């Protein structure tokens, strides 16, 4: 187990490094000048000095300097929002995204798993079909549609919740629901199909034959193996939810980190772009690892194989 962990950590580090390198190559390849943020032009002499100051006149040097800073968790200055550092921007935006992401994922698990189990138990009945329909809606509706519809219903028509802004618990409700919806749908679908497979297996039949109550068979014996695909999905999905959704942030005015990905790229803000990518890839690698670790907890066969 320890050896496995070390190997995964090492591989994760290599992955993050590769992602950083690829992003860096794209950052220097794309046209556009980060020092040119306004309408008028920066003096050539000043630009040269600024490039020297931030090591941006030497790609190789910049590559290593940024990495060295990143190792100390210092992502350096940003050019678009000159009054803030990348650390402050990421530091203020990441907790927001993490809060919404965690709540959305938990909501998705708490609703998606029981929904999937319920549907599997009532295979091919109207319960199953309506669950499937719900799942289909959840997966296929884009978040900007669900988000805007929720605003129109809850904020404009019924005036139950405020529109946009950030600060109170009322600001959390709609973004969390919107973000949770597609995840809930996926989880429900994965649980349902996993449950189908498991319910037709011998050990379940044995459990029923022993005279165990159906509830106990399903929730105690069948659910664990049925959840394996869900657990595998949860790793990358959680990382994705935690690092923010540009659309959800835009629709609800949530100050999360997703917008900075997009804006940094549009503004050619190299530091912010690289910083955000590093944070995102680290989280992704970390949560994939957690998901794999969770496998071993659920499935003794995998534990033994390690």
């Amino acid at each position: 187990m320890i050896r496995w962990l070390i190997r995964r950590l090492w591989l994760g580090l290599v992955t993050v490094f590769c992602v950083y390198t690829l992003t860096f190559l794209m950052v220097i390849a794309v046209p556009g000048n980060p020092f040119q943020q306004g309408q008028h032009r920066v003096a050539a002499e000043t630009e040269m000095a600024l490039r020297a100051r931030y090591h941006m006149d030497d790609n190789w040097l910049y590559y290593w300097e940024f990495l060295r800073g990143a190792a100390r968790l210092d992502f350096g200055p940003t050019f678009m929002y000159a009054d803030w550092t990348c650390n402050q921007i990421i530091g203020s935006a990441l907790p927001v995204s993490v809060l919404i992401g965690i709540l959305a994922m938990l909501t998705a698990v708490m609703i998606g798993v029981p929904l999937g189990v319920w549907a599997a138990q009532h295979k091919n009945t109207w319960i199953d079909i309506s669950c499937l329909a719900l799942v289909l809606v959840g997966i296929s509706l884009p978040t900007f549609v669900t988000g805007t519809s929720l605003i129109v219903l809850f904020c404009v028509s019924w005036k139950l919740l405020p529109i946009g802004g950030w600060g109170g618990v009322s600001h959390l409700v709609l973004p969390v629901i919107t973000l949770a919806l597609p995840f809930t749908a996926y989880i429900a679908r994965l649980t349902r199909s996993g449950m189908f497979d498991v319910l037709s297996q011998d050990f379940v039949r044995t459990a029923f034959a022993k005279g165990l109550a159906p509830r106990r068979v399903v929730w105690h014996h069948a659910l664990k193996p049925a959840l394996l695909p869900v657990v595998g999905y949860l790793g990358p999905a959680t990382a994705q939810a935690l690092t923010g959704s540009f659309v959800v942030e835009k629709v609800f005015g949530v100050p999360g980190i997703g917008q900075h990905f997009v804006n940094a790229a549009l503004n050619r803000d190299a530091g912010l772009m690289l910083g955000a990518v590093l944070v995102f890839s680290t989280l992704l690698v970390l949560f994939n690892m957690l998901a794999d670790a969770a496998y071993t907890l659920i499935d003794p066969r995998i534990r033994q194989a390690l």
Partner: protein
Amino acid sequence: MIRYFLITCTAVWLVAVLAFTCRPSEPPADLRYVNPSGIHTLDPARMSWTQDFRVALNIWEGLTTWDPNTLAPLPAASDQPPQVSADGSIYSFALRRNGRWSNGDPVTAVDFARGWRRAIEPGTAADYAFLITDHIRGAAEYVARRHQAVTALTALKRLADGWDLTPQRACDLTTSSLLLLLQTMGVHCPAANGDDEGSCRSVQECLTAAEVDWRALHERALRDHAASLDSMFAGVGIEVRGDWELVIHLTQPCPYLPDLLALPVFLPLHESIERLRVREGDVPLSPEGLVIYDPQWTKPDYHRADYPGLTTNGPYRLDSWVFKQRARMVVNAYHRGAGEISCRAVDMLVMENVSAALMAYEAGDVDFLPAMDVPYDHEIARLAQSGRRLDFHLCQVSATYFLNFNCVSDTVRGRINPFRDARVRKAFARSIDKRAIVEQVLRRGDRVAESFVPADVMPGYDPPNGLSSDAAEARRLLADAGYSDGSVTPTVDFLYLPADERVAQALARRWRETLGVRVELRSMESKTFAEDIADHRFMIARGNWYADYNDPTTYLNCLTTGNGNNDSGYANPEFDRLLMEANAAANPSTRMALLAKAERMIVQDDVPIWPLLHYALPVAIKPHVQGLHPNARLWFPFRHVTVRR
């Protein structure tokens, strides 16, 4: 197992929600308005966005300010109109004795000199520094000398760091100021001859072979330069006479100076900012010779090195600023008018989605929307114009939306550029039906632009009308230029931003129908667009210009030869001469006549640009908010506001 997992999930869920709910919250402000993109910067020397100006001018106060109704300049930090010398080139401002910073310190002339000096220093200077360097005597020379020093110091720093020198880098580093410096050390390197590989190589060899302790040389040069800074700056026409008098020596008469001085780049700075200056040892410069400050100085709650937090001298002070979320301004208790301000706290909320902001406004969560940039802006305009929504107003902004014709390049992206010929430019211009674009395509209530400078905005200036729309004449002009036969007509390249799509489609169709030309539409994201414009990789490009100050030169200067904003590349010595002559003219009406003559060259003779429209921008003000006046500058001082819910 699963049960425990679900229980843990629920517990975490509840704890997260509870923790979030129990955070202390502020009572709501008197006035809440939305700034969709948030504050870009609060550094007055670096800001260039209207929404940043709005915050800055409410928390700071320049020598003058604008009347929110008429936009005429009013005294602010100076309490009386300036004394002007007979030739109009020296302005003397007397400061109020009761001007106070938000910590109670008096506002003195030194504070203004500090702010203006910082605004032109390489490293800090930004978009609006040109207002100082163009108008104040000696400022441009000071900046030029500083630039020389900066390039030499940057090169020395690179050499001291042991940079791996390639011939190209050697060439980039070697400026005349570096060579001069090296000569004093007895090192004689040849000057680089452009980007010629051979000459760069010899420079590289010379620099590598030179037996110089680069580190010591850099240190000495930096120290020497820093020591000479103040005496260099003494040549700039910003003269501090005691605590209360500021005398400005101009390069030439500038009748609109009081209007200029209200802009953020001319704001004063509190002395505490010097505590956050980046220093190399005890030298107050960066190793590259730049004047740089800890960028955090604009935060009200930043206290490194005994910094008291952002200190300002306006009717409000910044109470809090959360990145991309909100900023709160509260009344500056030390301000002379603090007692009379009814609106005690103002919240600026960030909502990137303007439609959501509009919904928040409709729901009553927000009182004021100074920007309503939505895809259905024509609907907003219709509601405002028909009188069905009395809280929606259209601001006729002093800004022009126009087309740039590429006047310089022989070829553009491999094709011959026909727009070097004025007849082709005129043909394309005259075939456009501006009224159709304003009334049928955009329908936002914009005004058709007959001239580059909007009419009825600049006092005393009557802009000349441009050429009329005439399709037959346009075809004749194109034939004259040698493009009579449809087969010879070139394919024309049109560069624009995604937001211009509808206009671009309409123009392309119009040109195809009237002139028979094929138009290749190129919509580009703004950064790539800016690169293509800077490199003149376009034949026709969209352009716009917002007036910086209330004088025709704010528009016309953009078309002078070599101006950084002259995107069309227009160069006509006669036009430049007329502007210079106008600027030197003592008589205001002669001056305006000369400027009108210059503009006539643009809109009637040479047509390097073609004005299409002047923007009308909608704002929404709740009826219970009084004292906000829609105006051409979108300037909304909150000190006059009363909110009666």
